């Protein structure tokens, strides 16, 4: 008798619960690999926050046709060895509809192979390795290839700024080398003479020997690649040695930390990047304010690019739905949206077509300096 009562009781409870709990919105999962530990942890954190902000904004505006967007995040330590298995995990176990890379080039390249092998769309937010999109037609990139940005740098220095004798200081990794390659490619067209070139390692923080040598050469301008933790000390030491000529950098400098490290030496430094702090575009300002509120520090290029990548994916998901990966891929390829980093569309290879923002440090923060929109110059390779 009591057993029967117990059974009825349990059944009744279950029925009650399933009725009482409202049917929750479905969710669409997208994968995100970022470096949260290791040497690239700073950028990883920015990328993650940028992505989270985008997801929050998308969901607040109704999600993907009613379904919530959900991020599945894994830490890849910016290592190709880690990112490949993680990509497999995201695709086969977490069953993500698509993936975004908020990580560096090596890790992104390795993961892209896995995504392509499994016919799952993958968007690289800011990794610059030239071969990432060559993994296949499922891989896209929302930021500039190194060589494209390098070419923009040549136009900036040779034409817009009118400087001709340039010393090139290159960070010896794929980021720096591809920037230098693009710069050198386009320099002749703008009348630039590269009087010297120097390499430094990502581990270097003291640049005394290079600074001394550059000083003895008296260039009109210096084109230096690096991340905030190398560019900050480098610029600081260049100025301290009495070198006053313009220093032109790229998106690796883009962030508040560069200015904090270099202090007064940062004034007047110009960079090619993706984010315009003075933009009147409501999307850009919404992102900048939203990021500051969420993270507690000013937005940087990494967060802006990852934010954009999520928005691109969200827009494509709205068009094609999450069911079929092939049609999602096609929807991404046909992207034409506005995001914080500008007007986004892709070419045949999956490379982004957008304008280059040029920013300058004035009064201790980044401001608008110029825009480069030359479509021929900025055309990424088609294959």
């Amino acid at each position, binding site marked *: 008798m009591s057993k029967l009562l117990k059974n009825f009781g349990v059944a009744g409870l279950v029925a009650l619960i399933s009725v009482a709990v409202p049917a929750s919105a479905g969710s669409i999962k997208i994968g995100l690999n970022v470096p*949260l*530990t*290791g040497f690239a942890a700073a950028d990883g954190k920015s990328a993650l926050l940028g992505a989270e902000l985008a997801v929050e904004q998308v969901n607040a505006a109704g999600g993907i046709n009613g379904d919530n967007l959900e991020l599945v*995040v*894994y*830490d890849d*330590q910016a*290592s*190709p*060895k*880690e990112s*490949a*298995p*993680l990509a*497999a*995990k995201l*695709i*086969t*176990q977490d069953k993500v509809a698509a993936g975004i890379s908020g990580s560096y080039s*090596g890790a992104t*390249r*390795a993961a892209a*192979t*896995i995504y392509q*092998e*499994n016919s799952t769309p993958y968007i690289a937010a800011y990794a610059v*390795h*030239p*071969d990432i999109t*060559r*993994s296949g037609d499922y891989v896209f990139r929302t930021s500039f290839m190194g060589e494209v940005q390098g070419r923009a740098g040549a136009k900036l220095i040779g034409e817009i700024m009118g400087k001709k004798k340039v010393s090139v200081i290159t960070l*010896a*990794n*794929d980021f*720096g*080398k*591809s920037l230098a390659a693009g710069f050198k490619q386009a320099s002749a067209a703008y009348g630039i003479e590269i009087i010297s070139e120097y390499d430094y390692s990502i581990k270097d923080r003291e640049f005394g020997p290079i600074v001394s040598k550059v000083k003895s050469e008296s260039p009109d301008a210096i084109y230096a690649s690096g991340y905030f933790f190398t560019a900050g000390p480098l610029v600081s030491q260049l100025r301290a040695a009495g070198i006053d000529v313009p220093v032109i950098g790229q998106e690796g400098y883009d962030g508040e930390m560069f200015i904090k490290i270099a202090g007064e030496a940062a004034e007047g430094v110009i960079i090619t990047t993706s984010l315009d702090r003075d933009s009147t575009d409501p999307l850009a300002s919404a992102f900048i304010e939203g990021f500051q509120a969420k993270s507690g520090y000013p937005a940087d290029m990494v967060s802006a690019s990852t934010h954009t990548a999520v928005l691109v994916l969200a827009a494509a998901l709205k068009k094609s739905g999450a069911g079929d990966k092939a049609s999602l891929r096609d929807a991404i390829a046909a992207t034409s949206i506005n995001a914080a980093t500008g007007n986004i569309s892709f070419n045949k290879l999956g490379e982004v077509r957008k304008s280059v923002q040029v920013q300058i440090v004035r009064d201790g923060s980044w401001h608008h300096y110029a825009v480069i929109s030359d479509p021929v110059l900025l055309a990424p390779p088609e294959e």
Partner: protein
Amino acid sequence: MAYEIIVATTMAITILFALSLNIITGFCGQVSLGHAAFYGLGAYTGAMLTKAGWPLIAALPPAAIVAGSVGFVVGLASLRVRHDFLAITTMGVAFLFVGLVRKQEWLGGEIGISGIPAVQFGRPGLLVLSIICAALFAALAVYIKRSWMGFAFDSIANDEDTARVLGIDVPRFKLWAFVIGTSGAGVAGALYAHHVRYIGPDSFGFVESVTVLAMVIIGGVGSVWAVALAAAVLSVLPLWFQFVSDYKLLIYGLLVFGVMRFSPDGIAGAVQRLLNRRS
């Protein structure tokens, strides 16, 4: 399915890598802090050959030979310097390798080599190949351990000068240890290149050398099964620890420290003590 295969392949390759160092450092007592350079030599050799059209299986022997030849040269260094000096010399070799490779455009330079061809028989096939290579090498290791060569290695590891007095041709055996160990690393490297399908100079740096050495020490020098186990576990630890992602590396560091602090003879030693206590 794909995920488990990838994880298992990572384990198999790492086991081979660690067992190869075990021959040099575990059996023969020659400290090598630069083993990743041979991993890299094998990886680059294998990648360049398969990109030129060779099938992977045909690319494995050249990978072993290239790594083994350089290993022979480094082994010569071990005849000149000992212990901590040897450790630093081998460390230097690894830095030289990375430093040279990243400047060579024909090796891909900083950009590395990408688009390494997929293995013909797919990822399951690569898993089988990796397991076979690891198993063969483990069998070789066990055989060496029980042979005269193993005895010679052991005496050199214990006390080099006494071994010399006993009539053991120390230089010859040291060189053998290096050649065998580095060739094994070369094969592991070639397999790795086709597993991740992208290699760059940063994949073979000091951190990799230290990590594989940690696997050998944590396993317990000289023990084949324990080093294999340590390699298997440590290679996938970051994956298992994703849930504590922010503290992952911290836990890893503390774990490595903890094992050394509380069981300096590694897993093998701990198990040995457990068995002894029972009997």
